[in-house]
């Protein structure tokens, strides 16, 4: 059964499978009724019209076998997948063999076992797939039969009219059901999209809650960092002229800005934090060019922190211009900062994070890269 599991077209969604199931069951019932109720009696009466005569029962048996396999797939909520086209073409070959073995006088007659049935078999095979293949097969089959009539000289009006009437009659039923299936799939897809957007909204709410908790934690951190500083400056125990106090104040201010700037887009916290660092540099008059590329996995908090710390140190050294890049390449996340100053990058000891510094022509390029080994 492995062959039928492969995704040949777009894989149908869960909802699509469930909605299509009723239609597939109906199709299976129709096909089985036609095979046993209409074809079987004709087969018993008309076997003599075939040369050799065993072609009809063997052909009928093979069609029943395909319908049976399909019934099993329907029961298991599965589709034909990669096996669809080979089996469909096999059925076409079978229909051709049946027609060739048939007495030409009977091609539009009741003895023609494959004529009305193969379309239904293809309908089973193409459940959940695009209609193009189905329509093409039905058309090829009808054209072949028409060619056969012409080749055997059976072009009298009665034969052609009978052929036309039966072809249109059978095919229109089959196409109507196929179109219904197609419409059902469209509805299912729209419903699935609606469900997905609802799920996204729920996720966003969840994210907002997490961000709120995180923000409260940061406020607590601020109380620990900024308040003593402000108090110290207020009561005169800390001198604003002291470079260390100035640095501590700059750090606290950076944290404040980061907190206010935070947008709650937790999916790309790294880019948001990087934007804050760029903003801080721009406030110093540094012209920063920023660019990001590629798809990035969410990285562990300590790794993100290490990347940001490196970028912060590098940006700190920028005098007038800096280039900041963020890239996701082959599972790794890379932050690059090029500045016109001499950066001193802190030594880091974080799992899977490496940094490098290159200097040339008065420019310093600092890179921090998170590349998980697994």
């Amino acid at each position, binding site marked *: 059964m492995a062959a039928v599991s492969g995704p040949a077209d777009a894989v149908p969604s869960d909802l699509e499978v469930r909605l299509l199931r009723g239609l597939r069951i109906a199709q299976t019932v129709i096909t089985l009724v036609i095979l046993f109720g209409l074809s079987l009696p004709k087969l018993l009466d008309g076997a003599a019209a075939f040369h050799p005569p065993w072609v009809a029962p063997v052909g009928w048996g093979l069609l029943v076998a395909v319908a049976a396999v399909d019934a099993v797939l329907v029961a298991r909520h599965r589709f034909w997948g990669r096996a669809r086209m080979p089996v469909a073409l096999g059925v076409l070959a079978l229909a051709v063999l049946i027609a060739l073995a048939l007495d030409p006088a009977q091609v539009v007659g009741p003895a023609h076992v494959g004529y009305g049935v193969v379309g239904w078999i293809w309908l089973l095979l193409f459940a959940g797939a695009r209609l193009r293949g189905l329509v093409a097969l039905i058309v090829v089959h009808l054209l072949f039969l028409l060619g056969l009539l012409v080749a055997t000289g059976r072009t009298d009006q009665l034969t052609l009219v009978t052929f036309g009437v039966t072809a249109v009659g059978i095919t229109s039923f089959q196409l109507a059901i196929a179109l219904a299936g197609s419409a059902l799939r469209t509805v299912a897809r729209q419903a699935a999209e609606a469900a997905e957007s609802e799920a996204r909204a729920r996720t966003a709410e969840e994210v907002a809650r997490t961000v709120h908790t995180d923000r409260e934690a940061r406020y607590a951190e601020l109380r620990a960092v900024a308040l003593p500083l402000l108090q110290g400056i207020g009561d005169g125990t800390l001198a604003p002229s002291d470079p260390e106090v100035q640095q501590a104040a700059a750090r606290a201010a950076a944290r404040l800005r980061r907190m206010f700037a935070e947008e709650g887009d937790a999916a790309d916290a790294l880019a948001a934090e990087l934007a804050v660092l760029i903003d801080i540099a721009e406030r110093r008059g540094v012209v920063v060019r920023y*660019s990001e*590329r*590629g*798809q990035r996995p969410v990285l562990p908090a300590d790794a993100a922190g290490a990347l940001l710390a490196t970028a912060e140190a590098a940006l700190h050294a920028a005098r007038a211009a800096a280039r900041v890049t963020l*890239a996701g390449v082959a599972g790794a996340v890379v932050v*690059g900062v090029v500045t016109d100053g001499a950066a001193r990058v802190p030594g880091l000891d974080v799992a899977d994070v490496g940094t*490098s510094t*290159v200097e*040339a022509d008065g420019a310093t390029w600092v890179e921090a890269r998170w590349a998980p080994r697994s």
Partner: protein
Amino acid sequence: MGPSIVIVDDHPAIVDGVRAWCARAEPEIRVLASGARVEVALEEPAADAVVLDLQLGSGSPAYGDLARLVDAGRRVVVYSQHADSDTALRCLELGAATYLTKAEGPEHLIPALRAVVQDRPYTPPVLGGAMAADPRPDRPVLSEREREVLLAWFESDSKQLVAQRFHLSVKTVDTYIGRVRIKYADAGRPATTKAALVARALQDGLIDLAGL
């Protein structure tokens, strides 16, 4: 006589800026015509290259205009405010000679035009980043070194820095970046401009037939 171009952009300020850069270039790049519609370029078949703004008016990106120019055998430098990878890679696929974001214009537009009129590859850093981080399953296959060099070029916007980091010469760095561009020219929809790029790369020894 220096090369000649046509500018298709609906912002007069951009047109003036590009004209000024071209006038200052040494040798001078002649601007034969400029305008807000692609017909300006189609009516000047003598121009060696076309600078095309991808956003003409407020509609969707002018991929159709790009395709028309490429089908007419024109070398097109797309000059766009779109900085996303998808747009850049799609333009290459359609047969643009190169793709620059407007932020890269001051440094890269004139060198890009110089390269492009000779059918030589030119990959500005942001386009390089798009190639290095191309997530599409049918992207051209890059070697590890090619990807690293391209990523470094994207990060640093300096071939000196890239060369120093990988202990290579600037010329070798150029070769890596150029080779990747040829791989992209060799993929997707065929176009005469792409063929010219590959042919020139073969003449220059940037690639050999076995590398294709």
